[in-house]
């Protein structure tokens, strides 16, 4: 096997080496560990871009770990969807890590860099794996790394929110194991492609159990993606986290969405009997509720982080509305929206961080405050990020929503989808305008304490600016990106090609 073939493992091996590396060096030479950490993320980005380039030929590549062929060993599968998600994660990671280093957030507690890389390892592993139990293991890796990162910097409120976050996810893991057990008990295999084949071959007696297993699995992914009604953990947790960490978490909910997009057409597609398209009746109403609740949350939020968290909730809801119809055209629109929503959500959190650093004791509370240094710059960034998050022209959010509206026109539910998207966008616009004017426009009543904050250099504005530039590029290059997402959706909705790529021809 050539070096290029082995490139698949790079997104996993690089963090696996960099994380303990930074841990061992951290105590003695901090500068070295920072350089190693940044170098690791750059290497990861390079590998992800290379894989994306390799996947352009529409071939699905499978890599047998340990030399054991599928379905007996664990395989890593690179197709367009996996490559896209890897690039997205790497870009986000680089921007967030640079911001953390520049603002000194990594020094606020222990083990920031090792935890950061372990988190990336979990995310990349989840995107690459072709084995369902392996997906569980990497879900756990990314969850426990997120606990560590979430608690970074500590404080009583953060710890309390952390306990709730941990308990909710332990229940989710238990459900995942039960669903896995059921699927293995029915089919005696764990490999996703093999599951697709065997699920389609199940007899009538097994259909009830199959449906239960499918529903349980979808519930777990929905919990991960913060779908209504199991969404409450997300705003509470993200609002209590350090904004830099919350910016990285913007991709965590998308892992749940990815898992749904990966497993439903493949395993629970048309051939799956009673479990065919198993989340279908529930996902659309839940997604619509999520979009509405999210933007209402944006309106009533009391802090910038809370507002950003609800914006992420809303964008996940909008995204899932497009996914829920399980057609190629809407899936392509959803993928475009997924990329832009992740970047926009992260941008909102980073802008919140920049504002918090300048507002001293007012932190991120949405109340009028006396004038603070850098108010104009952060206000402008907030405006652009809000435009991106809510989906107004000229940024990518608008194009994303337009694509979703256009693609869903062909589906039977289009009146409901259109009404929800347009209505929630309106609420979101009102919410962000209210927030923005309170934070950056209104003058505080006389007699309020002046802002006491150390002078901050403009460097910490670079990270949100980078993300917003990327969003602008996404809009400008809309044609090319749309062609990419359409090719990806085409690949996803043709599971036979995946199965034959992983298991060999003739299955």
């Amino acid at each position, binding site marked *: *096997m050539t070096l290029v073939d*082995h490139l698949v*493992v790079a997104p996993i*091996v690089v963090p*696996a*080496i960099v*994380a*303990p*590396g930074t*841990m*061992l060096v951290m*105590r003695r030479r901090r500068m070295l560990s920072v350089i190693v950490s940044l170098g690791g993320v750059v290497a990861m980005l390079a590998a992800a871009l290379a894989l994306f380039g390799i996947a352009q030929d529409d071939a699905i590549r499978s*890599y*047998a*770990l*340990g*030399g*054991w062929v599928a*379905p*007996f*060993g*664990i395989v890593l599968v690179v197709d367009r969807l996996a490559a896209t998600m890897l690039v997205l994660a790497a870009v986000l990671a680089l921007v967030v890590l640079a911001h953390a280093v520049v603002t000194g957030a990594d020094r606020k*507690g*222990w*083990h920031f860099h*090792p*935890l950061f890389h*372990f988190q990336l*390892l*979990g995310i990349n*592993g989840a995107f690459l794996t072709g084995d369902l*139990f*392996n997906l569980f*293991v*990497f879900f*756990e*890796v990314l969850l*426990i*790394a997120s*606990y*560590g990162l979430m*608690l*970074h910097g*500590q404080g*009583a409120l953060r710890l309390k929110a952390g306990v709730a976050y941990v308990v909710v996810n332990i229940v989710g893991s238990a459900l995942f194991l*039960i669903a896995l*057990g*059921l699927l*293995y*008990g*029915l*089919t*005696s*295999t*764990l*490999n996703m492609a*093999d599951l697709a084949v065997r699920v389609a071959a199940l007899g009538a007696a*097994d259909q009830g*159990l199959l449906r*239960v297993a499918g529903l349980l699995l979808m519930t777990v992914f929905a919990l991960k993606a913060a779908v209504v009604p199991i969404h409450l953990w997300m705003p509470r947790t993200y609002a209590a986290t350090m904004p830099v960490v919350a910016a990285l978490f913007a991709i965590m909910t998308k892992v749940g969405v990815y898992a749904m997009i990966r497993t439903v057409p493949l395993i629970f597609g048309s051939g799956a009997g009673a479990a065919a398209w198993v989340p279908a009746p529930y996902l659309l109403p839940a997604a619509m509720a999520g979009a509405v609740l999210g933007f209402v949350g944006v309106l009533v939020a009391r802090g910038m982080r809370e507002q950003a968290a609800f914006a992420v909730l809303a964008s996940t809801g909008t995204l899932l509305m497009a996914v829920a119809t399980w057609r190629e055209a809407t899936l392509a629109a959803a993928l475009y929206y997924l990329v832009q929503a992740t970047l926009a959500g992260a941008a909102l959190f980073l802008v919140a961080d920049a504002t918090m650093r300048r507002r001293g004791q007012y932190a991120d509370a949405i109340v009028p405050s006396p004038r603070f240094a850098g108010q104009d710059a952060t206000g402008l960034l907030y405006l652009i990020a809000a435009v991106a998050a809510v989906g107004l022209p000229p940024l990518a959010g608008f194009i994303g929503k337009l694509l979703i509206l256009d693609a869903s026109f062909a589906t039977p539910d289009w009146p409901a989808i259109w009404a929800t998207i347009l209505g929630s966008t309106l609420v979101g616009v009102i919410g962000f305008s209210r927030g923005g004017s309170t934070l950056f426009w209104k003058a505080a009543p006389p007699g309020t304490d002046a802002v006491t904050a150390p002078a901050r250099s403009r460097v910490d504005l670079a990270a949100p600016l980078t993300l917003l530039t990327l969003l602008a590029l996404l809009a400008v290059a809309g044609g090319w990106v749309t062609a990419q997402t359409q090719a990806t959706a085409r690949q996803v909705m043709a599971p036979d090609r995946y199965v034959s790529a992983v298991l060999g021809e003739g299955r």
Partner: protein
Amino acid sequence: MAVDRRRYLALIFISVIGLVMALAFIHLSAPDLALTQISVEVVTILLMLLALHLLPGNPPRLSALPRRLRDAAIAVAGGLGVGWLAWAVMTRPERAGISRFHWDNSYSGGGGTNVVNVTLVDFRAFDTLGEIIVLGIAGLAIYALLEPAARGVAGRRLRAWRSNDRHSPERHPMMFVMATRLLLPLALLVGSYIFLRGHNQPGGGFIAALVFSIAILLQYLASGFDWTDRRRKFGEHMLIGAGVLIAATTGLGSLVFGAPFLTSSFGYFHLPLIGEFELATAMFFDLGVACVVVGAVLMALAQLAQIAQRAAKAEEADEPS
């Protein structure tokens, strides 16, 4: 106090449940699982004893009756649901699956007769890599949580803590100290034995690591934190980092030979006096696993033991005043 006694009783019950599960595993043909269950049980109960000792006592009535009924209804529904699912799957006829391959190729392809262990370190080594990373991260997060606990609000609360138990007059009972010191080399021997035999008989890196950790923890419990800490040369951070690196580089080694990541190889060597001896690269992977487990368990429990110690020290300092 009756309230605290109830807590210790609850922990005893939990450990009995775990023990019964281990016996069930032995009866139902899962010796590796039984060993793992028992050793994880010991460490978990130790952890809970240390940590929950510091929590406040329970008020007698925790919540109103309607709430309890609602909770009980949810619990019963959940239990019946999962139990029914288990029964439904267990009574289904078994279908030929991928484990047939694991059985057939365990010896010829993996070099070991303990199919479960070969699955863990060879067929599904990638899962094990993820699993030890989870444990390592847990250790790191626990360190980060406990390290600042002596300062600030938490430190004040710790110092204000008064234990409800009567302390034993002997701080370090002599019998306990001697017994644990004699046990340490024996435990290390047993742990090494379990490690080496894991590939072919029930055992393996994880269980061996837990045996090591428990032996060292007994030293903490018997002889006190300072005594043990002075004699311990290796740091837990080093162990966790080294363990993950060993596991990852073992996997990368196969890339040099053109094989995919985490491919293992093995060979049989003839040693004088001992006879035929098997050496597999999977053993290095198992070594990495053992290192991470020892590091993470020690990090969690040693830090926790220290926190109670710090509280007790602060309490002693206050007493004369």
